[in-house]
């Protein structure tokens, strides 16, 4: 059976800027999200690791399933955000149950 399609957004963001990102998502119209702790990583700024007992460079993964229009608004708002702060954001299509939720 063909399922309804929605957008999944994933952002990787630094712990100090997490609340700002969640606000950005909410303002764009995202109604649900789930945050996961990242453990380590590498990017333009070099490597980081949670074992550094120091929260300064810790990262979080934010997942949010939403509809296409909202996703587009998020992408637009995310551009200046990720210019300023470290991290990345990307999207992909997913098939969902109960599409009216998102």
């Amino acid at each position, binding site marked *: 059976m063909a399922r309804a399609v929605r957008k999944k957004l994933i952002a990787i963001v630094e712990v100090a800027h997490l609340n700002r990102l969640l606000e950005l998502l909410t303002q764009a119209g995202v109604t649900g999200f789930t945050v996961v702790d990242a453990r380590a990583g590498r990017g333009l*700024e070099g490597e*980081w690791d*949670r074992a*550094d007992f120091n929260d*300064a460079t810790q990262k979080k993964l934010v997942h949010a399933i939403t509809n296409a229009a909202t996703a587009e608004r998020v992408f637009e708002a995310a551009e200046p955000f990720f210019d300023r*702060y470290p991290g990345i954001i990307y999207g992909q299509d997913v098939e969902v149950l109960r599409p009216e939720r998102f």
Partner: protein
Amino acid sequence: MAEMFALALANLTSPAVLFFALGVFAGVARSDLAVPEAVAKGLALYLMLAIGFKGGVAVAEQGLTTTLILAALAGVVLSFSMPLIAFALLRIMTSLDRATAAASAAHYGSISVVTFVAGAEFLRLSGIASSGHMVAVLALMETPAILTGLLLAGSGAAGGDKRTRGELVREVMLNGSVVLLLGSFAIGMISGPAGMTKLEPFVVDLFQGVLALFLLDMGLVAARRLSGARRLGLGGVVFGLVMPLIGAGVALGVAVLLRLSVGDAAALMILSGSASYIAVPAAMRIALPKADPAVYLTLSLAITFPFNLTLGIPLYTALARAVLGG
């Protein structure tokens, strides 16, 4: 003199310093020894709670004195002003960009709680224990340097973010370690010796053991950070060794002016010579996201901290004694 050497040696063979060395060894040898993040944070919370509480009880017993007020003022002034020297030196000695130099400079105005704790123990063993109220000075010194750092970074700070500087300052002042230190200090003052009776086995008896375990982890982290030393260049490394001497030296001058006791003078030197590795990095990620964290974390954790722990503390103590007698 001979006595100072004996004390310096006792410092180097104390469990705390040796566990730090073990951590560095394990890290450099790429052992998979690791302290879980949550445990390391728990130990850090414990240390701040214990040090704050003990300081507060000490002040409850001694009362608020002019010495405390003077030392606190001195600490705040040092915290505000040391980043200026640090920034100037970094701009001369290294090729770091402005934001990174400003962020690094801020670390040197602020303080390292563990360095202070190791220093306080050293002073106690040397028979010139510092006053309990130096903990209040420590807590007050944590944040002013951050403001100087932001000023030094200039318009680049928080580049174009809609947050006002006021919001930034609020976030910085409410940093968890600052709140826990000052809060525990206040609780120690309010609950006083009666409170101490209840918490003594926790905050006093366990302290050295928890500190040893925490230092093991700091050694592991410092070793991981050592790889960042290449990015610093020779100039950066030299800065990380010279700046604590300057910080301690200026503090000694201030202590002489204020006629602090030998113990308090040495404690102020240790504070001024130490560099933050919790509160300031967190603040800099918020306020100066473009500054390179690898630079300031390496400077603070992998160069200045080990130097202070092993050589700086005995040296500052010896200087304080030489100048102030005792």
